[in-house]
């Protein structure tokens, strides 16, 4: 029998017992929906985690330090590299050199310093760090109360919630009953902070000073340190910690990068470099953060920077562990999702076995007028397959709808908690295709026994059946 005839007869037969076949098809669709829902959740969570981590800058950032620093992440490099004293300086020309490497989006200096900030005449000592304008996309600033810096040179700051609490004289709380960031931010936004800092001011050039002997040309190596004050407006309060990976060196107050550079704030490296008579007219950085265009190329960039004579650090390996974790999670979710489909497949077997009993005489008639065992078998297979495809399509739609409802519900909850909305449900096209093929395959396997049984029916016995 030709395929179109087979399909037509199968659909006709399914329509004849519409209630039973519909219930079986719904059973399959619930199974597929469960599978789609579980896997969508796994995939969505994986994408969410990846997105979050990418936004956090952990996976597309390489931290570059000079080998002159004692901070050294690469122990192998320590053994093979030249002695720290002979290593290259991480200064502005080097930063520009790194920025011109392929696949590098930007390379910005890590300017951070501990200083005093006064608010309502009360001094507060904390770590201040400079941020480039690209940090706006960091997820820590996604739900910032207020706004990010209006420009790269504006005298503005974004402060961390714990620092805001300190400014207001509140004791920071941890745990579930944390203070809402909006409550802390409201009285501070638009207010002024006064920052006192030590500015490195170049001394008039004098021949024969210590820096003159440097091979880097040390015309500006001598400088004086001047105490300065700058009024800064609080424009934003961040709830999440944008520098969680930095541990104890993380900052709680953030300045625009260009503004920070223009301040020439005294850095710990300045003193060290002048003592080595290595500092030139260009600023020297303790570290440079390199953001890559594509995280896949991070290894190549690290290698290139190492070849330049610097230390690098990235947590690329953590990504691999994360991917492995989600692969295992997806497998488990898939197994749980498939259980419902396994139950549904028993429904298919039951429906088709019932159909054989009901249509015993019909099978006998078909055989008497020339149907082969193969024709009968294929007909039952087609019926099982049709239920599988229909159930699969309905299941995918149902699974998608369940995902949307849960997503919506969760986002309503997040909104009530003053948290940003999230999209942690993903139904990629390959999952749709997989679910349909899987439902079809399971249905065909379920149809094996009934189809074989129908094909083996003795026509004489079947024709006697009433």
């Amino acid at each position, binding site marked *: 029998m030709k395929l179109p005839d087979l399909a037509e007869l199968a659909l006709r037969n399914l329509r004849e017992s519409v209630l039973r076949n519909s219930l079986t098809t719904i059973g399959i669709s619930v199974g597929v929906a469960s599978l789609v829902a579980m896997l969508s959740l796994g995939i969505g969570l994986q994408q969410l985690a990846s997105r979050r981590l990418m936004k956090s800058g952990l996976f597309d950032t390489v931290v570059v330090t000079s080998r002159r620093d004692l901070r050294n992440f690469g122990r192998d490099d320590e053994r093979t590299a030249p002695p720290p004293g002979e290593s290259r300086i991480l200064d502005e020309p080097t930063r520009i050199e790194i920025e011109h490497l392929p696949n590098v989006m930007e390379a910005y200096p890590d300017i951070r310093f501990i200083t005093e900030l006064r608010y309502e005449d009360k001094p507060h000592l904390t770590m201040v760090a400079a941020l480039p304008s690209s940090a706006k996309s960091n997820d820590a600033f996604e739900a910032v109360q207020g706004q990010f810096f209006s420009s790269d040179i504006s005298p503005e700051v974004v402060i961390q919630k714990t620092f805001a609490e300190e400014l207001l004289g509140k004791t920071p709380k941890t745990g579930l009953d944390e203070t809402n960031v909006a409550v802390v931010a409201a009285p501070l936004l638009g207010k002024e902070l006064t920052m006192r800092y030590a500015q490195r001011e170049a001394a008039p050039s004098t021949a024969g000073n210590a820096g003159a002997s440097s091979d880097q040309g040390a015309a500006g190596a001598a400088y004086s340190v001047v105490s300065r004050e700058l009024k800064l407006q609080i424009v934003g309060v961040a709830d999440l910690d944008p520098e969680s990976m930095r541990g104890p060196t993380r900052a709680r107050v953030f300045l625009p990068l260009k503004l920070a550079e223009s301040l020439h704030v005294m850095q710990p490296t300045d003193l060290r470099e002048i003592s080595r008579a290595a500092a030139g007219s260009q600023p020297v950085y303790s570290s440079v953060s390199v953001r890559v265009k594509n995280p896949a190329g991070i290894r190549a960039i690290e290698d290139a920077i190492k070849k330049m004579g610097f230390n690098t650090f990235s947590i690329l390996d953590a990504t691999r562990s994360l991917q492995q974790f989600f692969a295992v999670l997806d497998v488990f979710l898939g197994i749980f999702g498939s259980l419902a489909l396994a139950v549904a497949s028993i429904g298919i077997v039951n429906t088709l076995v019932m159909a054989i009993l009901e249509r015993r005489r019909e099978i006998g008639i078909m055989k008497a007028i*020339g149907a*082969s*065992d193969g024709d009968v078998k294929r007909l039952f297979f087609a019926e099982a397959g049709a239920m599988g495809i229909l159930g699969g399509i309905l299941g995918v739609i149902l699974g998608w709808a369940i995902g949307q409802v849960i997503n919506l519900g969760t986002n309503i909850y997040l909104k009530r908690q003053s948290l940003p909305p999230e999209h942690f449900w993903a139904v990629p096209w390959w999952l749709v295709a997989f679910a349909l093929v899987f439902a079809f395959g399971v249905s065909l396997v379920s149809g094996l026994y009934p189809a074989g049984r129908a094909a083996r029916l003795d026509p004489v016995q079947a024709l006697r059946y009433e």
Partner: protein
Amino acid sequence: MSVSDKSQTNGAPAIRAEQLCRHYKMGETVIRAVDGVSLEVFSGEFVALLGSSGSGKSSVLNLIAGLDRPTSGSVVVNDRDLAQLSREELARYRLHTVGMVFQSFNLIASMTLAENVELPMRFAEIERGKRDSLAREALTRVGLQSRMSHRPSELSGGEQQRAALARALINRPQLLLADEPTGNLDSHTGTEIMDMVREFNEKLGMTVVMVTHERALAERYAQRLIFLADGKLVSDETNANAVGAERGRL
């Protein structure tokens, strides 16, 4: 279906059964439904198998139809031993060589008459367009052109049997096997059906083997009357009274 005059029988036996046996086991008991039947039916003949209930006439018909396999002996149809055919070959034999009509019509209830009639053509993988025209032609031949889209339950017994006849003949078989074709019909309708069967036998040269327990009906239409009792052939008589009997090979 074109009508041609093939009413003359020829000398070759269309069906030859030799020492045909079909035994069933019911626990420890062996039921000998067919027990050593040997017979020959010639091409174009109209033969009636007669006997009381349980005589084995339907079992013989099922063996000739290829619906059942003999326990021993052989059935040779057109020089092919059915016992030697595989299940697939038997299905093809039933599809192309045999047309069957049953007492209870055996139309598929969920299909219209047109769909019932074209069903064997689906198994024969005939193109849809050709199927439609052939089904229409066959139903017109049995006078059911106006009932093509009706389901069997909407028709009388006589109409259903006419539709079953149309289905049996749709693939132009050489053998028409009828198992009590008038058993569920009143005498008037039964006569109508039998007239049609005889017409197919005479005009299409189709070999007809009919199972019946009505001797009068058999004597009216069949050229030979074969009597069975307890699975054995007890008598094989020429029926000189049958219409067209003179054309049979006696």
